[in-house]
């Protein structure tokens, strides 16, 4: 939840109170916005909410547990395709398909997590990337079920359309709900024993095992949880887009965006990914619309500067800055340079 006074030495319960108040205000404004914004803007803000949810999901396995998954998009794609297939071929309603997609993604995570989470560091990252790319190829090849390279369309008209198309306003609310759901999960995980266990694993996995944390179970659960959160977002995305293609639903760029948002915002915190998602999406949308010819360069420049000047992420930078009263960016460079 966005906080204002949390950086000071206020007590935890007062921080929670302030956070909740701000959360409620923000929610009210978001709801009010819905009637103010026209359709295209609603879509743009919906995308921001979508990335808030996605980055919170990645944060669970990547930020808290420290297992950076380069292939997170596979759950986005699996959840999305599951929803598309059951809605098209078995005439499910979207509201039934939604939680099932999450469960499907979580089951897949449990299946591949057992062997993969034994790997460490960059090897884990590449293995997950391999899974993502591999599943995309599989989806292209089982065209009878998934439509393959020709894509698949969710029915939105006619007698097979069990759920009415939500429209720009409806999807705005749906993605807002998903964002809130992810923030709640993120906050709960960051404050309970499970979350502390994950952080322990991140800092020193062997020591964590030594104090009695079942590291394998915790890791797999974290992976499955992040998969569930990602899967339901994928299902919602598919419903919004109506027609989807494998290249987009398993696009590695989505994972990279998720990671960027978490890292730029501050990994291992709850606000960090929120801020990262908001700012990055907003900035890239704005640049693309107003600097049509050079937006890529400007965005690249911003990313490079942000990474060099604030590599620990904005939230961690601020927290340390308030604590040490030293906001110098050059300190960062001096600390992290070779």
């Amino acid at each position, binding site marked *: 939840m966005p906080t204002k006074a949390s950086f000071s030495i206020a007590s935890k319960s007062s921080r929670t109170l302030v956070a909740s108040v701000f959360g409620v205000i923000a929610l009210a404004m978001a709801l009010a916005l819905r009637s103010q914004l026209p359709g295209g803007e609603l879509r743009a803000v919906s995308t921001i909410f979508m990335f808030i949810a996605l980055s919170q999901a990645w944060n669970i396995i990547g930020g808290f547990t420290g297992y950076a998954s380069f292939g997170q998009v596979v759950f986005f794609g699996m959840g999305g395709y599951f929803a598309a297939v059951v809605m098209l071929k078995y005439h499910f309603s979207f509201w039934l398909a939604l939680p099932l997609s999450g469960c499907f993604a979580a089951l897949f995570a449990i299946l591949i997590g057992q062997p993969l989470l034994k790997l460490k560091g960059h*090897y884990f990252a590449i293995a997950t990337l*391999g899974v993502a790319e*591999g599943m995309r*190829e599989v989806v292209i090849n089982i065209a009878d079920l998934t439509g393959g390279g020709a894509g698949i369309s969710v029915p939105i008209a006619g007698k097979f359309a069990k759920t009415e198309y939500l429209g720009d306003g409806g999807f705005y609310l749906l993605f807002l709900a998903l964002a809130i759901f992810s923030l709640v999960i993120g906050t709960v995980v960051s404050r309970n024993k499970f979350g502390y266990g994950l952080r322990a694993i991140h800092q020193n996995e062997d020591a964590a095992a030594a104090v009695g944390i079942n590291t394998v179970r915790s890791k797999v659960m974290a992976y499955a949880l992040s998969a569930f959160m990602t899967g339901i977002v994928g299902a919602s995305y598919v419903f919004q887009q109506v027609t989807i293609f494998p290249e987009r639903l398993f696009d*590695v760029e989505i994972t990279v965006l998720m*990671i960027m948002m978490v890292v730029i915002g501050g990994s291992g915190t709850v606000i960090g990914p929120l801020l990262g998602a908001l700012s990055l999406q907003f900035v890239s949308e704005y640049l693309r619309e107003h600097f049509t010819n050079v937006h890529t360069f400007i965005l690249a420049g911003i990313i490079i500067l942000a990474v*060099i000047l604030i590599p*620990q992420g904005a939230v961690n930078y601020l927290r340390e800055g308030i604590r040490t009263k030293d906001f110098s960016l050059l300190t960062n460079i001096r600390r992290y340079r070779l």
Partner: protein
Amino acid sequence: MDTFLQVTAYGLLQGGLLALVAVGFSLVWGIMNIVNLSHGAFVILGAYIAWEMQAWTGLDPFLGMFVSAAVLFCLGYVIQRYLINLIVNGPVFITLLLTFGINMALIQAMNLVFTADFRSIQTSYGSNSFGIGEVRIPLVRLLAFLLAIVITLLLVAFVKRTRTGISIMATGMDRGAARLMGIKARHVYALTFAISAALAGMAGTMIATIETFDPSKAGKFTLMAFVVAVLGGLGNMYGALVGGLLIGLVQSWAGQYLSGTWVNAIAFLVLIIVLIFRPNGLVGKAFYAARVEI
């Protein structure tokens, strides 16, 4: 039987090309623990430089690749020394983001400067092939394969026999100790990255003679480098070669004996299986995955 030999030969040749693309990437990752997402962009840039050389001066690509290597060496040195060195001690995936930003900027720059036209380097011998029995061996692919082997052997000799090479390996093993020994770590890192970029440039030139290239292909080569480097294993200069040959063979056989569209899925499946049973890659050194930097 002939088909099998043809397919195997083709797979090995393709594997050599994959190895050439991946060797620089593996070097940087193994020595400096830096994942360079802009590696594919370097490959494409190398291809463009060689293409321009041929367009202006008619230089044959097998000579033009040295020009590519030289230009990319300088570019790589500068990027590492003045950009990436700034964040080397930071949290692990910061280099991922930085190189992603560099990748974005490079690709867009190439789009603007060279336009997104499809290009390829023509040579008079470009589509020659000769036959060994019933098996046809394309000439340029064979040359690329041989180049991959030569470069791997040179690299191995370099890191084992030359002073600079040994200092690179030392810095990779224990940066703190190396610095205490008087090795200038900033310079050595920049040098390693520069070598990697130069190798990428040479790989790009080979790509340009064999297939068509344009800026949007950069991502494909980065992904290729990833898979091959990890499959082969880090910390061992032969890793890229081993990984490349394996992937090349597997894809070639899969393409022939299964449906042609499954080749990519099979490659990733092989990657995952190898990682599960040999987590450090086929010939990788476990040390490199677990080391601590100061």
